[in-house]
């Protein structure tokens, strides 16, 4: 895990130094720049040091919490900390919505493939998969806030200050974010379930007299969830790590993704670096959760048990 994070940080750092982004010192220097100021900035920020020294300086600053942005001179970790609750709120709600809908719709459409319900769900999920979230976000904002004022036009209200208002402000972002994932997960679950339905153990389950619903839930759905969990871990990790850039931007939520977007457009290395590591950390963390969940969902992958016991 540590090695993964190290490798990611090195790669991001190198990429940033290779791309033609102009000198950060020049941008920090601003409009009224002169040679003396530029020289001073280069010394202050260590831009004259060898690249590996610059790398280690930055890593040290990240882990001591002293990293500051090139552009705004604000402490990067403080900025991320401010964004975390917003991004978490966005993700938790969206995850809840997308898993509920995806499992329900996937299950319903797998019951009778080719039926009207299945086709209707297929159309909706195809729209969800193919519609860009900024477009969906813009549509929802236009019709539900500008035209009818049912929902507020974005912004964030802290959960602790007013939970109802918190949810009210987040409903549109949740659904916008969830819509894509509902599509993907629903399709995936449907095809998994159709595969599993042909398994011999499903026939066994029917042969012992279980009802069709018991067969579907205990045997088909249960066994179809294993691949879903893999994808789920990766997606949630990426989202919490600032992956919901567009949604946060469209709905004016100053979360981690929004901070990442601003930093990238400013070619501001310190926040990019910190957010990348932050995101990578969550992806790796959720991968570990996935492994644990796997052992629960599929006993065959439990370590150390496979060899024992076979007679």
């Amino acid at each position, binding site marked *: 895990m540590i090695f993964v994070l190290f490798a990611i940080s090195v790669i991001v750092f190198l990429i940033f130094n290779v791309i033609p982004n102009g000198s950060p010192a020049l941008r920090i220097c601003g409009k009224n720049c002169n040679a003396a100021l530029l020289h001073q900035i280069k010394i202050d920020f260590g831009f004259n040091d060898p690249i590996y020294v610059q790398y280690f300086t930055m890593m040290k600053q990240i882990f001591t919490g002293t990293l500051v942005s090139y552009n705004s001179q604000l402490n990067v970790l403080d900025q991320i900390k401010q964004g975390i609750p917003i991004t978490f709120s966005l993700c938790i709600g969206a995850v809840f919505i997308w898993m509920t809908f995806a499992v329900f719709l996937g299950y319903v459409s797998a019951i009778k493939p080719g039926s009207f319900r299945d086709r209707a769900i297929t159309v909706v999920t195809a729209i969800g998969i193919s519609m860009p979230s900024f477009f969906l976000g813009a549509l929802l904002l236009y019709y539900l806030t500008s035209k009818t004022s049912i929902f507020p036009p974005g912004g964030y209200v802290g959960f602790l200050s007013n939970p109802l208002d918190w949810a009210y402000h987040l409903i549109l972002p949740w659904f916008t974010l969830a819509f894509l994932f509902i599509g993907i997960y629903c399709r995936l679950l449907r095809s998994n379930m159709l595969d599993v339905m042909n398994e011999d153990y499903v026939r066994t389950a029917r*042969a012992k007299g279980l009802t069709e619903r018991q067969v579907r839930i205990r045997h088909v759905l249960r066994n179809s969830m294993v691949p879903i969990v893999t994808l789920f871990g990766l997606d949630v990790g990426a989202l919490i790590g600032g992956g919901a850039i567009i949604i946060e931007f469209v709905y004016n939520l100053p979360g981690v993704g929004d901070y990442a977007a601003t930093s990238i457009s400013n070619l501001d290395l310190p926040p990019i670096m910190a957010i990348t590591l932050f995101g990578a950390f969550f992806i790796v963390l959720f991968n570990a959760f996935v492994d644990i969940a796997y052992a629960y969902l599929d006993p065959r992958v439990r370590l150390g048990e496979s060899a024992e016991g076979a007679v």
Partner: protein
Amino acid sequence: MSPAPKLLEVDDLRVKFLTEDGMLTAVDGVSFELDTGEVLAIVGESGCGKSVTSQTMMGLTRSPNARIEGSVKYKSEELLDAPDEVLHRIRGEELAMIFQDPISALNPVYKVGAQIVEAIQAHEDVSDEIAKRRATELMAEVGIPDPARRVDEYPHEFSGGMRQRAMIAMALALEPNVLIADEPTTALDVTIQAQILRLLKRLNEDRGLAVIMVTHDLGVVADIADRVLVMYAGRVVESGSLDQIFYDPQHPYTWGLIGSITRLDRPPTHRLAQIKGQPPSLIGLPAGCHFRPRCPHAFDRCTEPPGLEVRGGGAGHEDRCWLSAEKKKTLRVVEGDIGLEAPAA
């Protein structure tokens, strides 16, 4: 009082599948009866319709393209168009089934004991502890060592033979009257096969469990069956008692099956006999006898469909072959005593 109904009566069962290439006839008018405590073997090559027959009896042929006709009666209760509630009760409680490959027939994510408990609780409202105790007892009865520990293990921790025993334990959970065993020993080692067959035989004798044994292996049949149905291309081509089939086989296809058994009590021939050709496609079967294209003794009359009736055999020994009884005898004597027949030149 009318005579007691048979335990299981299958009458003119037909199963067709609508495929892209046309109508596929998997089972073409199969009829048989099963008495309490009887062991009936259904024998035939892959694709002869024996598995489809057995699964259709349980209502497990579920393809939307399947067309099922005929009648399957359990204690005079029709099963083919029975409502789901009836099927759910009958399955497990009256008719139970075990399958060819026990590793894929058990759900890999549940403990073996839990899967037996599930079968019990699907039919009876009993507590988890009682159901689990019964599962443990059943596992002991089918010869799984250390059942108290094994009940909490997963299928992948069992060996092939133990898995099939666990399947049998699950099938016995509700004390059914009929066990349908669909190639129960095909995926197992020969030594394990014998153990499983002995187990089935013991259950048949101790519990009076009627068994329908579906297999392609006549050797398996010889050990335990009372009666044998030989199927070819969806039809029963010969039916009779075990002795009739083995010592007085009437149909050339049965001769071929018997001929391809390795005999240790006879001097080895230069090579093992085989039935020439492939099992036919079940789409657009030839009129007349389906075995005709592969039969070394086919003659003009074989283009007419032969009915299943007593021809050359003893009482209750039916077959579908136009050859006269004398001709059959001579042909069977040509090489070996039971109808080992070299293809006619």
